[in-house]
């Protein structure tokens, strides 16, 4: 009777311990919290860059992949040390309000408008993204928005604004509130249009029933910056580690990895390294 009871408890104990393996919390000054966007994680880029950084410096990177909006909110609360984001207007505000130390250009790729091959709004091949959105609105064709304050969502809202269309609240305009990969899947299943970064689109292209319909417009540039969170606002920020990570992202070593990342898998790079350049010179 007693034996039975002990064995069942022991069993639970054993399975907990068998897993063993010490994943002790790393010393605090050796770990750095990187708040970044889902696109850098979903494309697989960080899986390659971070081990290199960790090996070179001995820091342990805790990557929290959220939308750019949430990443910057974490920075504003001092809950992240360094940010890798792609929402330039919000980043400028972040810096102006003194939450960041330095903002450096890392890389870019571009956004594209993806949609079903049938293309009910007839936007395929248009050179202007605003034109394309106007046609989607006129055709009342289904459009899937991230709706999550991410960098992609911010860009999409800016283009809607430029097109002069009040999209929110319309029946044909739906917000998923999900990451880019999941939103693309929703758009694929529902045969809707969506604005996506090229990297995530390419990573998912093989299982998606969506084509790239509009690309190459200058407003569709997708620019990533790295920013350290200001330790004067939040003393607990690990500024040494944050600076080391930001320096690494613009170093020749990381930039080389970015330049070739994805070439073997997709035939073309997913990101273009831009360290040291200015935003004005991108895409030229």
């Amino acid at each position, binding site marked *: 009777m007693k034996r039975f009871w002990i064995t*069942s408890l022991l069993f639970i104990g054993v399975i907990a311990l068998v*897993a063993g393996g010490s*994943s002790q919390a790393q010393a605090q000054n050796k770990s750095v919290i990187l708040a970044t966007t889902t696109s850098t994680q979903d494309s697989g880029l960080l899986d390659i860059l971070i081990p290199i950084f960790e090996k070179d410096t001995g820091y342990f990177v805790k990557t929290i992949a959220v939308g750019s909006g949430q990443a910057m909110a974490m920075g504003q609360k001092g809950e992240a040390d360094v940010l890798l984001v792609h929402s330039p207007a919000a980043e400028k505000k972040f810096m102006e309000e003194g939450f960041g130390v330095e903002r450096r250009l890392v890389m870019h790729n571009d956004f594209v408008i993806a949609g079903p091959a049938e293309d009910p709004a007839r936007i395929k091949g248009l050179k202007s993204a605003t034109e394309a959105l106007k046609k989607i609105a006129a055709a009342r064709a289904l459009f899937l928005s991230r709706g999550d304050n991410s960098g992609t969502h911010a860009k999409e809202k800016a283009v809607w604004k430029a097109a002069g269309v009040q999209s929110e609240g319309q029946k044909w305009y739906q917000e998923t509130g999900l990451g880019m990969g999941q939103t693309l899947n929703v758009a694929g299943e529902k045969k809707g249009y969506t604005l996506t970064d090229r990297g995530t689109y390419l990573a998912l292209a093989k299982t998606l029933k969506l084509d790239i319909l509009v690309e190459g417009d200058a407003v569709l540039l997708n620019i990533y910056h790295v920013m350290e969170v200001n330790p004067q606002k939040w003393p607990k920020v690990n500024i040494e580690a944050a600076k080391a990570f930001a320096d690494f992202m613009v170093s020749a070593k990381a930039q080389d990895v970015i330049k070739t990342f994805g070439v073997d898998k997709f035939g073309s790079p997913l990101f273009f390294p831009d360290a040291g350049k200015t935003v004005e010179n991108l895409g030229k």
Partner: protein
Amino acid sequence: MDLIIEGIIKAFWLLVSFDPEVLGITLLSIKVSGTATLISLVIGISVGASVALTRFPGRSIVVSLINTGMALPPVVVGLFVTISLWRNGPLGFLGILYTPLAMIVAQAVIATPIVTGISLAAVQQLPAKLRLQILALGATRRQMVWILIKEAKLSLLAAIMAGFGGVISEVGASIMVGGNIKGYSRVLTTATVMETGRGNFDVAIALSIILLLLAYLINLVLTQVQQRERPR
């Protein structure tokens, strides 16, 4: 359909090849959820048995609170645990946000009301005369409680299964407090969410199958133990 078959094949290969990453993720899932369940058992059975065996004013309010806790949504737990553990939050000095330890804490918070509620019901439904009988035979109060817990063991095993099942399958809290950090706080459920987002449906299906297998194996063993003793 092809996708599901591909996923099953992928799961098979990941399992037989002992893929180190998948193995690590699986072991971490067991470790985090197993530890959280253990903690919830200690707290849940003590509190459940105490409430079942005592009468005090406001008891029905406490019982209904425990029963409501059984339906505590993991994301709500995740949100509050995250805010508490923030560096600049009330428990920030612990410095455990985005660690497996934080996931254990969150999962223990989820599992404890489940175990408490089932333990309470289990001990309470024992015949009232049994208590008198045990005391009449000269047992101390402590001995009586221990005997009652043993009497209720079949139901208590159900509490373990429900608690463990609740936390091993939970994703909302784990992703918020653990951060899904590669090789560190990534568990089966959070990895499945991420691989789905990446469009790696075969891997996502493979991870789901491993999760189901794991849940099945653990419940199989517990059920064996439970069913070995037939109720009288």
